[in-house]
């Protein structure tokens, strides 16, 4: 790790001394020109958000500042079509359009284009993301399958977190926060120029609070109380000289302890994450060439699970990407890409050695403008995945390492059309075929449950295949110029085929749980939204989501997604003051809890619908000082059976310099 960081730093130094340029894409210049956010997430090419053919939402830095939120999932929860469930006070899972289960592996999360997905579990540990809200330029959210651009697991949507550029955006701030539940967070960011056209941003954060909210407080449950602690340090550097070459380096370390939930049982873990990424882009005669390489190591030195005991798991990922963006004629833009990814999971006693996956994926995106009012984007990607396992075989294992010597391959596609009907109306149609890859745990773990949970074995299955996901969407945006407001209506229909499930069966007179590809699921829904944003005066918005999930396999939580979700916000800014109120309603759903027993008992129970209110008031007496008082969840609620979210109050002092 240290060697890789050194090499990356050396590489950046060489680039700087060669008088090369920074940042992969100049968001600031483009946003300043067009007066609206620009994005590269939607199609892989730069474009104005209003011009993109895919259905996208953007949370801007100003939205974040007005939100009072402490973390990214709180911001996401306020959007239509997004489900957030809390595993513990600071641990959450984010799903799109009905898939709100814990350890959700269907949403691709990226920081500046780098996947932060934990392949071993097929999940995102949000608290390990090495980014503070003040560093974020915008969060881009795309609904629907996007595998043709991002590969496996971008099946329900993509969230790309774009941070500020360390050369041009000088983010210098210190933030302290105190609140109930013994909350004490502190963070600092400094941006330092390195010559005229290079810069480096360093950020450090230390967050602490007390655990709360376990609903069933048996002695066994109470043992799993874990105060959420998070320490993070990150570096973001870039260099710039000429206008046609850019280089950047990102490196980070986070160390988090927290309580989580898996399959209805509690566990807690320490999660350490180390990441380094280098990127280079150059304007050439054959287009804009970009190359990115990243290495991440997510290590869970101890993980304590109610059902499976204590174990250690580590996951290292190396990614290399190269792409070329070019335009042929006035109407056709292309992106040609090649991605490679190597992943290795080691969990002594659980995986029987090293589980590896190697992926190679060429891809092509083509955008064609038929007229100023009509454009279409088509993308296709071929993924080849090679699975492997090496090391000692566990004696209880029913699979040999040779069983893991197999491959999977599949094609994903995206197709979208944007039609401007009038100056105020835009219609978007999209179809996609995405691919949900089973996590490496589903493919190759071997766990023996504790005797009180029946002592059964849970086997991964190396023969699992990627699950195709078909996504159909229609969206209509209308601008109300007299209100300075925008509305959106979206209809969606998603189908997942061959979903992975884990039924019990008897092998050699022994009860075992084995992961298999089974039947699929269908989601139908409607999303309505209306919003008006203003820095001074009234600020308001709201969205409503109706969604129905039909799961063919009944694993207990069948069709459990909340059907109705409503979010609203109203705020007012006057002089140095701002006041905002965020409200949400989520209808009833169901939750699952695994209880000790032989075989273990599974409790499925209703979770009541709930309303949450989160007000904030902020005072900014000078350009550099702000004081903010925020409340979250004024009424307690549950979104899973085993965790109750309680009201939180906190005071935030922020000094920018």
């Amino acid at each position, binding site marked *: 790790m240290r060697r890789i960081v050194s090499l990356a730093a050396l590489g950046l130094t060489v680039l700087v001394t060669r008088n090369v340029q920074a940042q992969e*894409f*100049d968001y*600031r*210049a*483009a946003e*300043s*020109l*067009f*007066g*609206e956010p*620009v994005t590269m997430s939607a199609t892989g*090419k*730069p*474009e*104005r958000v*209003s*011009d993109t053919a895919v259905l996208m939402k953007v949370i801007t830095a100003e939205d974040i500042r007005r939100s009072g939120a402490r973390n990214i999932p709180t911001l996401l929860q306020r959007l239509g079509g997004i489900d957030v469930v809390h595993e513990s006070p600071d641990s959450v899972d984010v799903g799109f359009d009905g898939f709100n289960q814990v350890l959700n592996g269907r949403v691709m999360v990226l920081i500046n284009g780098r996947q932060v997905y934990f392949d071993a579990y097929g999940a995102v540990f949000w608290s390990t993301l090495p980014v503070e809200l003040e560093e974020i330029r915008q969060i881009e959210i795309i609904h629907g399958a996007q595998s043709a651009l991002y590969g496996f697991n971008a099946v329900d949507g993509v969230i790309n977190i774009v941070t500020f550029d360390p050369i*041009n955006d000088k983010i210098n701030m210190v933030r302290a926060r105190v609140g109930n539940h013994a909350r004490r967070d502190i963070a600092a960011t400094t941006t330092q120029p390195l010559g005229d056209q290079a810069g480096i941003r360093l950020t450090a954060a230390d967050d602490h609070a007390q655990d709360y909210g376990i609903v069933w407080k048996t002695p066994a449950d109470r043992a799993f109380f874990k105060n959420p602690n998070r320490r993070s340090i990150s570096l973001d550097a870039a260099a710039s000289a000429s*206008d*046609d070459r850019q280089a950047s380096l990102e490196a980070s370390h986070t160390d988090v302890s927290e309580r989580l939930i898996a399959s209805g049982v509690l566990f807690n873990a320490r999660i350490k994450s180390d990441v380094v990424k280098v990127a280079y882009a150059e*304007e050439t005669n054959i*287009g*804009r060439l970009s190359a990115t390489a990243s290495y991440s190591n997510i290590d869970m030195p101890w993980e304590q699970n109610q059902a499976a005991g204590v174990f250690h798991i580590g996951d290292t990922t190396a990614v290399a990407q190269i792409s070329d*963006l*070019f*335009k042929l004629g*006035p*109407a056709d*833009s292309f992106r040609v890409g090649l991605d490679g990814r190597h992943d290795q999971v080691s969990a002594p006693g659980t995986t029987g050695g090293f589980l590896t996956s190697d992926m190679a994926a060429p891809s092509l995106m083509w*955008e064609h*403008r*038929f*007229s*100023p*009012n*009509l454009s279409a984007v088509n993308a296709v990607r071929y993924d080849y995945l090679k699975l492997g396992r090496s090391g000692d075989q566990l004696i209880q294992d029913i699979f040999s390492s040779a069983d893991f010597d197999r491959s999977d391959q599949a094609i994903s596609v995206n197709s979208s059309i944007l*039609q*401007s009907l009038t*100056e105020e109306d835009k219609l978007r149609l999209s179809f996609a075929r995405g691919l949900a890859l089973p996590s490496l745990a589903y493919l190759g773990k071997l766990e023996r449950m504790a005797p009180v949970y029946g002592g059964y074995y849970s086997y991964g299955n190396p023969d699992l295949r990627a699950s195709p996901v078909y996504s159909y969407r229609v969206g209509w945006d209308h601008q109300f*110029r007299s209100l300075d407001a925008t509305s959106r209506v979206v209809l969606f229909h998603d189908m997942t085929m061959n979903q992975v499930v884990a039924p019990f069966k008897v092998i050699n007179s022994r009860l075992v749980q084995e992961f298999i590809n089974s039947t699929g699921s269908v989601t139908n829904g409607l999303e309505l939204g209306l919003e008006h944003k203003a820095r001074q005066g009234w600020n308001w918005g709201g969205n409503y989501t109706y969604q129905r999930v039909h799961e063919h396999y009944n694993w207990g939580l069948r069709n459990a997604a909340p059907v109705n979700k409503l979010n609203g916000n109203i705020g007012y800014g006057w002089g140095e003051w701002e006041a905002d109120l965020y409200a949400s309603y989520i209808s009833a759903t169901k939750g699952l809890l695994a209880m000790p027993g032989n075989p273990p008992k599974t409790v499925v129970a209703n979770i009541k619908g709930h309303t949450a209110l989160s007000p904030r008031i902020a005072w900014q007496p000078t350009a550099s000082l702000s004081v903010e008082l925020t409340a979250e969840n004024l009424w307690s609620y549950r979104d899973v059976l085993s965790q109750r979210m309680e009201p939180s109050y906190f005071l935030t002092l922020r000094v920018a310099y």
Partner: protein
Amino acid sequence: MSRFVAPGMLFLSCLLLSDAGNATTLNELKVGVRVFDFLKSAPHGPTPLAVIFDGRNGASVDDARAIVGWVNSGVSSIKATFVPSLFDVHQLDAAADYRIAIVADGTDASYELIRDYALRNLVLTVSSDLSCMRFGSCTVGIASTPRVEVVINREVATSCGIEFSEAFRMMVREY
């Protein structure tokens, strides 16, 4: 398909013709100078800027003076600040050393002169008068209402040896 293309072409025609005969607005000027940031060899620091007008048209003279006033009061791109100078379209030989120019409104009687000047001296010409771009005299046409639009005349750009970044070309319309 033709039923989609026809309204589109109508919209483009409206866009291209809509601002002809209107003075340059401050917002259009801000958009115009920010376009310079996306050149492959973008100007940095203090940069000479020609402001071209038709001395025989009072409205054009007034527009050019307003442009110079705004630039002198701080309208700039991210990478460069501009030092503006006024040039009558009938005396453009004096502006031979300039690489970038803003064309004021009301020069439609002299589009040929502007085209000759731009091609001879390889000058990037930007104007809120979209018909100047459509005629093939200006390289870039801009509009700021109801939304910002940037339209590049590819033929003029190629003839003048003007290269924009690939990323920028993907965000604007090319004519």
